[in-house]
């Protein structure tokens, strides 16, 4: 027996970039997050070769979950070819050997910034959401020590109060994306800034969602089949974005979340935000099998 047989050959970085101790910590914190749905778990959050705020939290989770058999999809604003999405997907694949895909149905891990794909996710898929600010109480309490106590006490009165006052002032709730939601009846989360359109997709879903904020060093999770209820008043219905009636000018799809593109001379045109769904629909118009899976929304109505 020699020293060489006892050790691995030297490499500049570990498999999947992160070293084993970092991955072990992340695995433990992910398990904790799954065990207490919606509760923010602090983690060390290592530096990665990417600037903070650019998906480093999601990246650390993906790097920990990925193996050579993984199939990785990364989207930014719904698009696989967004510059940062492409850069993250390339990096994950190069350090882990995981395959890359644009197709939601083929992916085993989907890392996303600001969107949940329109096709229904399955039991064997993990959604990793990049989170800039994990604290739903930030606007009512900027001190994180106090905010932590408020979570411990389930003290969400001030958060409800801001919603009450929005209705008083504007006649409706003005919260745009990152609409606060109560997970498993206990912890309020900010569901990363996904649009209101996407929040219902977290409720009682088959897939596991892990939300990770690298800069703020917090991880939280929505396990499969867990209640996720947006904070709403019993007599004021939850409003998703009014996109049900819009049609994508490229693919002809309608009833999905759209990007609005301002036009010269006024007016707007729309493109479906889930870019690969758009590609599949275009394929259909060209007479090929589209391969579109079941979608959470049908005819613009949430129906999953």
């Amino acid at each position, binding site marked *: 027996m020699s020293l060489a047989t006892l050790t691995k050959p030297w490499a500049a970085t570990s498999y999947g970039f992160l070293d084993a101790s970092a991955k072990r910590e992340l695995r433990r914190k992910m398990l904790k997050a799954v065990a207490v749905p919606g509760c923010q778990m602090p983690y060390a959050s290592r530096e990665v070769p990417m600037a903070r705020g650019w998906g480093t939290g999601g990246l650390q989770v993906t790097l920990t979950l990925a193996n050579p058999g993984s199939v990785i999809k990364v989207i930014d604003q719904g698009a696989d070819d967004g510059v940062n999405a492409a850069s993250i997907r390339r990096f994950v694949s190069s350090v882990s050997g995981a395959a890359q895909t644009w197709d939601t149905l083929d992916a085993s891990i989907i890392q996303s910034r600001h969107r949940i794909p329109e096709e229904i996710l399955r039991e064997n898929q993990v959604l990793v959401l990049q989170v800039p600010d994990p604290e739903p109480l930030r606007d009512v309490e900027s001190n994180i020590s106090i905010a932590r106590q408020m979570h*411990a*006490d*389930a*003290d969400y*009165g*001030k958060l*409800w*109060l801001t919603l*009450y*006052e929005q*209705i*008083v*002032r504007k006649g409706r709730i003005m919260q745009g994306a990152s609409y606060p939601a109560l997970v498993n009846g206990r912890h309020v989360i900010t569901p990363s800034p996904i649009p209101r359109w996407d929040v219902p997709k977290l409720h009682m879903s088959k897939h596991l969602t892990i939300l990770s904020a690298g800069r703020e060093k917090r991880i939280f999770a929505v396990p499969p089949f867990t209640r996720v209820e947006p904070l709403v*008043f*019993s*007599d*004021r219905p939850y409003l998703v974005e009014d996109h049900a009636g819009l049609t994508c000018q490229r693919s002809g799809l309608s009833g999905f979340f759209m990007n609005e593109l301002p036009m010269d001379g006024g007016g707007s045109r729309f493109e479906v935000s889930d870019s690969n769904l758009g590609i599949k629909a275009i394929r259909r118009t060209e007479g090929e099998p589209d391969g579109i899976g079941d979608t959470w929304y049908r005819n613009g109505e949430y129906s999953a």
Partner: protein
Amino acid sequence: MSLETSSALQRAAPRLMADAPVLTMAGMSRAYGAVQALRAVDVSVYPGEVLGIVGESGSGKSTLLRMMNLEDTPDNGDYRLRLPARADRNLFELDRYERRMLRARHIGIVYQNPHLGLLMHHSSSGNVAERLLVAGERSFEVLRSKARVALDASEFPLARMDARPIELSGGMQQRVQLAKAIALEPSLLLLDEPTTGLDVSVQALVLDTLKRLQRERRITMVLVSHDLGVIRTMADRVMVMRHGAVVEQGLADQVFQDPQHPYTQQLVHAKL
């Protein structure tokens, strides 16, 4: 002095004592460093009565009120509230969450300093609604109407119900605090120098409102003040505190007309 105290206690005539007390505190003691703020204080408050606690600053009266509001815990002492459908237990044994919920549902408080009781940059109606939200109300219309009713009962001008307390006068701020305190029809309303610092005329109006509310709703109140005039206007029964201990208590008329303890005599005569 101990003799005098015990005789004063015996003469605290039990006008309302037919009922069991709503609030019972026994053996309340608390030291802050070298200062003994409370020395084995016993208190009972009966349904529908107003108990006035009077004493100079440092007498322990505000400490006692903070304990009643579960903001602080004593070194020793037992505190019980008789509440519908709640097990009888020492409230200081409750955990943080239970305390917070109990406070939200069953105890109202008006502080001398409105900054302690109000979110100054939220709407007045919202301040009242927050209390209801914490207690679990989720209908916007119900929140709105209950806030309106509570503000109206506190004689707050409804045209300004969505103004922020920071924009309101001191008297109006106290009315918002009061509306917030009574919105859930609390079993106990605590008033900590509620009119101190207000103009005399405003003070009289706020006291009128408090008296009317007390008359109409039979709210059980504990009023802490250094001002004998305020206590005399409001209280059925009076407790005089000094150096963390109760030196005299009894029916308000009795204590004011025939004070037994030299300290009370001094207080009453200074006032007159």
